[in-house]
């Protein structure tokens, strides 16, 4: 497997979802790859944060509310809006679901923003080199084969598949 593909497997590796052979391959790769070790450590951090979240017990009356409804016809036409809102708050399960939805609406953009910021930091240098190399093509005597190499390498990094060093380059 290539570096990029192994990196995509890190989350599954952390969750113990890989076959023993794949897990061994990841372990071997981690010994020599600082970038993957850092990614793994970040994933472990996120996982430990999630594990620290308090568990919310499901209200006992939830199942009692759901059970009689199984197999019954769909609910009739909804009441006017105000009645609907009151009905929601009379049922704790629905209120809980609403609260979860609201939290999700707030939390998801926050988490996404953080992930995008980390990703921007990871690809930032490649992004700058690429854009600079393209701007340098205005230089009258720039070497186009070398510009192609710089732009090409940066393109791969932005696409999530950075060029790996070959043995002869080390």
């Amino acid at each position, binding site marked *: 497997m290539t570096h990029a593909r192994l990196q995509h497997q890190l989350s599954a590796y952390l969750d113990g979802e890989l076959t023993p052979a794949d897990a061994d391959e990841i372990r071997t790769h981690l010994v020599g790859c600082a970038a993957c070790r850092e990614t793994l450590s970040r994933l472990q951090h996120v996982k430990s944060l999630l594990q620290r979240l308090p568990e919310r017990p499901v209200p006992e009356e939830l199942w009692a509310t759901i059970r009689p409804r199984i197999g019954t016809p769909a609910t009739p036409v909804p009441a006017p809006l105000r009645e609907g809102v009151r009905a929601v708050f009379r049922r704790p399960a629905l209120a809980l679901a609403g609260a979860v939805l609201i939290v999700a609406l707030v939390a998801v953009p926050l988490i996404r923003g953080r992930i995008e910021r980390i990703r921007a930091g990871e690809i*930032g240098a490649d*992004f700058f080199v690429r854009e600079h190399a393209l701007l340098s093509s205005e230089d*009258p005597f720039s070497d186009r084969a070398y510009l192609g190499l710089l732009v090409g390498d940066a393109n791969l990094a932005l696409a999530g598949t950075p060029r790996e060093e070959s043995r002869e380059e080390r």
Partner: protein
Amino acid sequence: MSRRGLPTLWLVAALAVPGLGAPARLPIPAVDAVVAAMLGAPALVDYEGTKVLNAVRGDRAETVTALESYKRLGKLRVEYLSPESVSGRLIVDDGASSWQYEPSYHLVIRGPSFVRPPGNAPQARDVLRGSLAAVLGVEEVIGRQTIVVAMEPRAGGASRRYWVDQATGVVLRMEERDATGEVVFTSFFTRISFGLNLPPALFRFHLPAGARIISLFLSGDPVASPQALRRQARFGSVVPASLPYGYRFRDGAISQYGALVTSAATYTDGVRTLTVFQTPSSKMAFPRVGVPVTLESTDAQLLDLGYVRVLIWQWRGITYALVGSSLPGSAFVLLADEINH
């Protein structure tokens, strides 16, 4: 040292290089004529050849071999042969956009063209204004007569030498030395054939069946002034109070990749480009690349890719990146301190 004394000293030193004092077999043209020929070559002739690039990256060197073909006006094809990590990479540039094929990922990346039209007389004047240039002599390269031209930026930093084919103006060999005189980049043809009409089909990209395509056009239209760039950027776009000698603002643009939005201000001395990128730090974690460097007011990271250097730092909620070739690391640090002031 006075600015008038510097060119004289430099010319004396350049002419003292061993091997270049040999008697020329052809009359040596004036440097402005050679520069004009170099700029005009892309309009004159097609070629295909094998090129070797050597670049020093930090403490190691990288050697890359490629087949480079060029067709008037502004069509380019480069096939990389070695090392293993780039072997098989193909870049086809039709002057409007470029296509990169990576066989190991069966991936095609489309982006802006990086081939520009031939230069003109004002550009030749810019080159000579930004650099101290001199013809050093005549040498034979791969069996062809070349004029050897030395150019040293007036702002200081790396100097370059070009071996310019006397018949066509095409650069057959190029060498860049850092301020200490050490060669940091070379590029030379080991074989070249000139023609007047290479087949157009060679410069058309054919999409391999089943390949994944990614489009990377990240920059908006360029603007002509720092003020216009600042208006577009919204998060402010600082202009350095002073620039390295000979540099001036060329253009600016807003670039975007995902959530990463940057303003890019480009400065030039007529030969080289210096780009200042600015992006809100809230949108980008600090990139951990290169080696630590200390600025007057904060710390920075310097990434040395040989031909290109990148200095990255954060200051008052903005992440800055200074990217350029040929300028020494100390000039980068000075410029960064100017920006922070």
